[in-house]
């Protein structure tokens, strides 16, 4: 087992080699593979993920861009232990999640990994403020101090005044922002985001992206952001990983050196954006 662990670390270093940051990886994915149980009449189900290796550094904004159906959601589900891996392992803050049957999963690694899903998943029977404070309440951490933080977050994303509204009374963009700060409110060190802005119009999307960068600047944290939108992947990231079609593999890695803060309404004019966009587009073909 020790040998396997060492090998996994070795692989991780190889991929990480040549990066400018010296910080040790916060989260490391090694040899990760996944396939679902075969359907009736199917001898073997295809691999969704196969031998996937990458790592994320402390406070890094990592984006992963891949075609639809590449297994991006599956990957995030495994990283935050909602789903079990078929092979490989995930290392995070000295703990290891090995491939297994799912019986021992700990979704969210004891509230250490937050997950902003594709759908906002606001609970329709809770008002906006009760949704945002839901994780804090569950964790027994709802006090004056955290409530202060929630109020602050609500203000940053322009939701002040809508506290007592129910989700069905809010617009899609507002619900997105609410689901974003619901995760930020309890301050997990890593946040996974699964195309959180997939279902909104282009203008709202830009606003939401700017909100996200502003929140990230307020209290830096490690983010793994998955999308199929190349522009979004580049404009938000410190580093972009390009995923292949299923079974997903990392086919390329780009460091984004566009200086921050970035003006996302004009990101297409920023230095180096166009070239990188073109390169990633070709890699995705």
């Amino acid at each position: 087992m020790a040998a396997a662990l060492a090998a996994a670390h070795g692989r991780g270093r190889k991929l990480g080699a040549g990066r400018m940051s010296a910080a040790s990886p916060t989260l490391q994915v090694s040899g990760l593979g996944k396939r679902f149980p075969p359907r009736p009449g199917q001898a073997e189900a295809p691999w969704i993920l196969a031998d996937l290796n990458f790592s994320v550094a402390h406070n890094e904004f990592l984006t992963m861009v891949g075609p639809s159906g590449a297994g991006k959601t599956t990957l995030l589900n495994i990283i935050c232990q909602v789903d079990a891996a078929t092979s490989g392992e995930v290392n995070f803050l000295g703990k290891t999640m090995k491939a297994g049957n799912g019986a021992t999963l700990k979704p969210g690694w004891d509230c250490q990994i937050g997950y902003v899903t594709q759908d906002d998943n606001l609970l329709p029977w809770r008002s906006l403020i009760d949704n945002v404070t839901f994780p804090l309440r569950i964790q027994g951490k709802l006090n004056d101090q955290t409530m202060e933080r929630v109020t602050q977050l609500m203000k940053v994303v322009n939701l002040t005044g809508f506290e007592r509204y129910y989700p069905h009374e809010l617009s899609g963009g507002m619900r997105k922002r609410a689901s974003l700060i619901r995760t930020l409110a309890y301050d997990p060190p890593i946040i996974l985001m699964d195309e959180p802005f997939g279902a909104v119009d282009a203008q709202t999307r830009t606003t939401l992206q700017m909100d996200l960068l502003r929140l990230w600047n307020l209290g830096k944290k490690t983010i793994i952001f998955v999308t199929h939108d190349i522009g979004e992947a580049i404009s938000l990231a410190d580093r972009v990983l390009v995923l292949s079609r299923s079974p997903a593999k990392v086919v390329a890695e780009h460091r984004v050196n566009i200086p921050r803060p970035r003006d996302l309404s004009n990101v297409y004019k920023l230095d180096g954006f166009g070239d990188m966009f073109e390169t990633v587009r070709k890699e995705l073909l």
Partner: protein
Amino acid sequence: MNPRLQLTVDRLVILVICIAVWQVCSMEWGVHWFSSPLKMTNRFFEVVWNGDLFYHMDYTIRAAIYGFLVGGIPGALLPFVLRRMPVVSAVLDPYFAGGYGMPKLALAPLFVLWFGIDLEPKVALVAAIVSFLVFFSTMAGVQAVNAQYVNMARVAGANEKDIARHIVWPGAIPYSFAGFRIAAPYSIGAAVVGELISSNRGLGYMIQAGATDFDTTTVFVSLFTLTMIVVIVNVGVARCERWLLRWRPRTGAGASWVPGA
């Protein structure tokens, strides 16, 4: 004319037509078959004044309420227990289906044998009907729980108890209420059937006694009273539901429609 007033007037017109048809029937075929609107009204006030009506109403309503609680509470809670026991649930499934399929009214004579002729057999009959209606609709709600909400809560640190309380329970309430809404009029109906079979009190008994005596006026008074009770109960359940489910949009899929509410 304003639309609200118009609606009221239209409704009154229908009422007048119904009463007129009734009057014509009783004049054409005889008061002993159809009673008459006037006779019924007189008798209604008579039994209200002398307390007979409340004496019988009290009995029927008590049977319905006790039965509703005895059947409805376990019916609403059992699905939450079974949610955590998929094997037990799968094993019991055909038995629940069988129990649901059995015509419960046919159990009434058996309940009389077991529980005598007082309130107990009526309560048992109401409970038998209500429990299955509430159980199956709540079960549907528990099974329809949104897996994404559950995952979200788990990632946020929720344990199984939190999930039952904050995700499954509120999600199942609309389904439970669909069951309550159907069960509420049934509980009155079942209590009345129980009284028809064997009783010396209750609105069902009033109907039975009236019909045996060729006293159709009493039968009509009882039917009218029962109808009023059920309408009021329906409105009450709908009010309660509307308050509990105020988080839901008023219209759209799943919005409930209750006659009169």
